[in-house]
């Protein structure tokens, strides 16, 4: 039973068939072991491929925003550009820095990659395509993604370079601020959804995405989440820790070769992770657009595989983040903190209460229109 005729392109059909096949031939232990290894390989491959695609996409979209063409000489339309970059950076010398804190200097990229990997694993890419599905999913994601900042702090501190040091300090300030906003914004939706588990949260959005369900309050939370998520990934206009025109390369000034490559990679992955969490929490994750009662329409929409829905929604949010990034100048550290503490945080607190009231008084769209 490989094909499920209603949704023939779903990968989950394949995985469950494979699972059954293994179970029928092997013992429980071996089945699990093979599956774990496969999950690991799949995640690593997805991680690398998504990063490569994102790097290419960003360079191309940036170019179009700037009235240029972007990479177009390596492969058709420059499609292989990031592959070439990867080969290059893999074979670049890794410099040992004198008088640095050797161990921390070496360990910092681990934090960066492992943190983004752990968050990456919790993302539901499609139906049944989610590795880690804790019942405290939202809290888990908030906690784990903040580990990445330790990578930045360690990198800045251990490299014994003054630019890095300032970059690390800035990233600390940035992190302690925006972590709150993103937490509160997610919490607003948890109030609405009544669960912290991603799979349940998605299922609850079948006919009405959270962003519509909680209307005004959800939209405010969505915008705040995008802003603070953008800030947490250290990308312009929030790229103060890196701040090319001030600190040359900021916290990773002393990192060369693949160690720098990991930071480069993680930066793009974090962007993807923020966008995909926003997709999952606000935009119904991998669910297609469904409208209660329109069965024919729902059927057609449902025919499109879930991962396509997921990636197109995420892609849209990534585009949004690129658009913002290439439109604005960089904030200064006091502006950055002002934005958070004087605008986002108070608005967030009020918004949370507003959401509770919406939920308790039954003013959510689902309640008003009797959507499932």
């Amino acid at each position, binding site marked *: 039973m490989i094909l499920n005729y209603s949704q023939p392109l779903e990968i989950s059909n394949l995985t469950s068939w494979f699972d059954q096949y293994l179970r029928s031939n092997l013992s429980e232990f071996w089945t699990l072991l093979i599956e774990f290894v496969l999950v690991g390989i799949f995640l690593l491959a997805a991680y690398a491929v998504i990063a490569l695609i994102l790097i290419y996409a960003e360079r191309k979209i940036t170019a179009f925003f700037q009235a*240029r063409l972007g990479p177009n000489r390596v492969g058709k339309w420059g499609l292989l*550009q990031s*592959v070439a970059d990867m*080969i290059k950076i893999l074979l*670049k010398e890794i410099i040992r820095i004198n008088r640095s804190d050797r161990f921390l200097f070496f360990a910092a990229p681990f934090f960066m990659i492992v943190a983004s990997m752990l968050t990456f694993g919790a993302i539901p890419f499609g139906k049944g395509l989610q590795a880690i599905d804790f019942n405290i999913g939202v809290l888990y994601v908030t906690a784990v993604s903040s580990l990445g900042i330790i990578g930045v702090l360690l990198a800045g501190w251990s490299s014994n370079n003054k630019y890095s040091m300032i970059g690390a300090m800035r990233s600390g300030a940035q992190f302690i601020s925006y972590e709150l906003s993103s937490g509160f914004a997610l919490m607003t939706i948890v109030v609405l959804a009544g669960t912290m588990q991603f799979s349940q949260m998605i299922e609850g959005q079948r006919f009405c995405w959270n962003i519509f369900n909680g209307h005004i309050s959800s939209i405010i939370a969505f915008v705040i989440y995008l802003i603070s998520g953008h800030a947490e990934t250290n990308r312009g206009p929030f790229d103060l820790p890196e701040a090319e025109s001030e600190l040359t390369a900021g916290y*990773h000034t002393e990192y060369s070769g693949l160690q720098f490559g990991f930071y480069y990679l993680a930066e793009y992955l974090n962007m993807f992770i923020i966008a995909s969490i926003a997709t999952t929490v606000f935009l119904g994750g991998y669910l297609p657009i469904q409208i209660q009662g329109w069965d024919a329409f729902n059927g057609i929409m449902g025919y499109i595989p879930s991962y396509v829905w997921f990636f197109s929604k995420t892609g849209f949010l990534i585009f949004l983040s690129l658009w913002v990034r290439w439109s604005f100048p960089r904030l200064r550290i006091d502006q950055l903190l002002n934005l958070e503490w004087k605008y986002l945080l108070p608005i967030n607190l009020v918004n949370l209460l507003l959401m509770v009231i919406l939920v308790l008084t039954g003013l959510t769209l689902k309640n008003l229109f009797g959507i499932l």
Partner: protein
Amino acid sequence: MELKDIHIKGIPTEDFKDNEYLENYIKELEANGVNVILSKVDELINWGRSNSVWPLIYATSCCGIEFMSAAAAHHDIARFGMEVTRNSPRQADLMIVAGTIVHKMAPLIKRVYDQMAEPKYVLAMGACAISGGPFVNSYHVIKGVDEIIPVDVYVPGCPPRPESLFYGLMQLQRKIKVEQFLGHKQR
């Protein structure tokens, strides 16, 4: 490997200047008995390396502005995949020396070059970097950056227009493509 295998999009090999330098280089490699299997891997690696040259702009004067023009929309160095200018020497592959180098600057350029990660290249852009240019007779000017650091490609002009720079970058790509990467003794 032969020189005609080195393919650069847009310009046929025979239209390039200074082909004999690369031919000599290949002959030298062949004399050393290059391993055929390794050279296939080398080709892949060199393809990657030559198409991903991230520059560090050591811009001191006028030529730096021409580099900015090259990076801007009209010429767009990004087409070559080289718009990722790294300001930290650790992450750069190519140092573009754009402008006059004077006595006071000499220790600095040497230091920045030393701090770059291997494999690294240097491109001397403009008359000043090549030979001291207009200021060659001055007491405080170094007569060519090659007195301090090894230079791979010379791009003449005062300042060279962005197309000239691109031509120089393609020459560098050709040079990278004929290099033997694996099992090669490093500088």
